[in-house]
């Protein structure tokens, strides 16, 4: 008995180690790519700091001070050490350390992506179930078209049209931005998630205003995750509905609703969690274009603004952060999959 238990714990340790190696190499790869991008850039980093009129000896001294005379592998080592301790250099545009800037803008992006994923999952999953249950019907076709258009439409274009219709013509939502200028200086956020903060402080008028700002970009992002989630839900549900336990449940005389929501969807839920996690990661990326259109002060807007000003430290820092979140979410969904589905547990 003891031997078997020891074997099991050894296996668990081996799995954990494997995970660790995967994460470490992926992260190293991420850093290697951003390092490479930072070095192949045609702008000389020294000239970027000093300008092109600095005397030669100053250029040489600065080059040495910046560590650019060291062999490449040493530079990479220093770069990794700095990046791992959260030091991505100073942003030329804002003159703050990049990490400070990112800490300030990141909650805005997360709030948007979270609300978007919520909208996408709450509408997408029922739509996918409906399409699978009524396979081949008009409803199925409509869900399919919704999904196809979601895969094919440029998000920034749809965002512009949505602004035109819902803001300019109908006046249902507020103008681009995160919060009305009236509240901008009176409202003091705690966590950086404005909706939560306003609720927490019981400021209902502020909450209403923030909601009117966030609802349009969040719905747009939600539409894109809806396209993905409903499609995957449909295929998972079709797969489950063919299984024999469904026939058995029907034979027992269970109601159709119970079979669909209680049995089939419950079994489809495990891969669905992975899909929803991945769509969350996708929205963090999709926010780059959406935030530009909606002037949403998040990470996406920060990256594109820095890009336009050749502020490479900020661009690469933002890339590393989004990449890290991507790696983290991938890993998390993998772990969730293993813990939620008893069939994949190590025996």
């Amino acid at each position, binding site marked *: 008995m003891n031997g078997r238990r020891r074997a099991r714990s050894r296996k668990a340790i081996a799995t954990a180690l494997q995970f660790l190696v*995967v994460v470490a*190499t*992926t992260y190293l*790869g*991420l850093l290697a*790519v*951003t390092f490479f*991008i*930072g070095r*192949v*850039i*045609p702008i000389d980093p020294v000239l970027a700091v000093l300008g092109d009129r600095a005397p030669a000896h100053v250029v040489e001294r600065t080059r040495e001070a910046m560590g650019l005379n060291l062999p490449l592998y040493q530079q990479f080592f220093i770069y990794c050490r700095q990046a791992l301790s959260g030091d991505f250099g100073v942003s030329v545009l804002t003159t703050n350390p990049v990490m400070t800037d990112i800490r300030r803008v990141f909650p805005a992006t997360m709030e948007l992506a979270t609300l978007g994923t919520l909208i996408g999952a709450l509408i997408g999953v029922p739509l996918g179930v409906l399409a699978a249950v009524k396979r081949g019907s008009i409803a199925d076709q409509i869900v399919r078209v919704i999904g*196809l*258009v979601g*895969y*094919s*439409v*440029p*998000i*920034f*274009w*749809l965002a*512009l*049209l949505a*602004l*035109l219709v819902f803001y*300019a013509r109908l006046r249902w939502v507020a103008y681009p931005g995160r919060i009305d200028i009236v509240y901008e200086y009176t409202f003091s956020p705690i966590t950086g998630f404005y909706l939560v903060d306003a609720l927490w402080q019981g400021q209902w008028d502020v909450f209403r205003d923030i909601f009117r700002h966030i609802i349009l970009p969040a719905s747009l992002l939600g539409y894109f995750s809806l396209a993905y989630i409903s499609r995957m839900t449909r*295929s998972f549900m*079709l*797969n489950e509905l063919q299984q024999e336990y469904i026939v058995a449940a029907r034979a027992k005389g269970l109601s159709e609703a119970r079979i669909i929501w209680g049995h089939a969807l419950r079994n489809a839920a495990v891969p669905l969690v992975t899909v929803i996690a991945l769509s969350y*990661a996708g929205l*963090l*990326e*999709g926010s*780059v*274009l959406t935030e*530009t*259109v909606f002037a949403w002060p998040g990470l996406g807007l920060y*990256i*594109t603004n820095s*890009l*336009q000003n*050749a502020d*490479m430290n900020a*661009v*690469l820092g*933002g*890339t590393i952060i*989004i*990449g890290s979140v*991507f*790696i983290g979410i*991938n890993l998390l969904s993998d772990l969730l999959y293993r813990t939620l589905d008893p069939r994949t547990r190590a025996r």
Partner: protein
Amino acid sequence: MSLATETRPLTRREWLLSDRPQSRLQARLGRAYMTWRRFSANRLAVVGLLILLGLCFVAAFADLLAPHSPVIGNLAGARLLSPGSEGYLLGTDDQGRDILSRLIHGSRLTLAVVVLVAVIAAPVGLIVGAVAGYAGGWIDAILMRITDIFLAFPKLVLALAFVAALGPGIENAVIAIAITSWPPYARIARAETLTLRNSDYIAAVRLMGASPARIVFRHVIPMCMSSLIVRVTLDMAGIILTAAGLGFLGLGAQPPLPEWGAMIASGRRFILDQWWVATMPGIAILIVSLGFNLLGDGLRDALDPRESGQ
């Protein structure tokens, strides 16, 4: 159709569907015909194919089809005309350029981006995947680790960073998109190769003394093609959207090139009053990427019935 005249002449269909083909050509044509029948039974897929043929046609004859110059506008008399104006079917932009003509010429850029990315990324992924799958061992481990690293990246953000480093422009946009889009192809090619590696015909070729390179290039890679084509077609829509997104951010094609994403960006200033300037290019992007998605779905069902999820 000179063969099989003993009893009665075969119709063309019977010749194609014959289960005893008399020549390699007949067998190939027969298979292609079966695939086409499965494919054309899906009406939406045919619509997708027609859209893309239309795109190719428009791109090929852009000079003849476009009523005006795509670059030189009529600043004096035709600024921001609404759609349906005399001589300007889709209206004009802020520099008096005909939007329809710009869209027609822009189709060349879209097609060029798609074809170039496919030509660069697909072979790279194919070779990496096939070599990794066939070689196995540490070569496989290293190549797949690299693939996974690239797969773990957010595509658009990585493309942004690459373009930021290389400088804006349509060539650099193509390179950046290609760098970010090969890993899924490597995954597919490896999976296919693993199923083929231990099959009898590979063993037979090896027994005849073929070198590993010959086996991979002549006997493994051709077998990976159909699933790869499906995947590439399905990816095309995403590639078009990424290219348009880069153009929208000012990092893709530079003015005055009539790239559709950049056209949307330049129409953004007028969206409240002259909505058509930004709307028309978006419709063009939507139609073309919808075409690729429909075609990809149809091809998947026709070539790869296992994958269709039905």
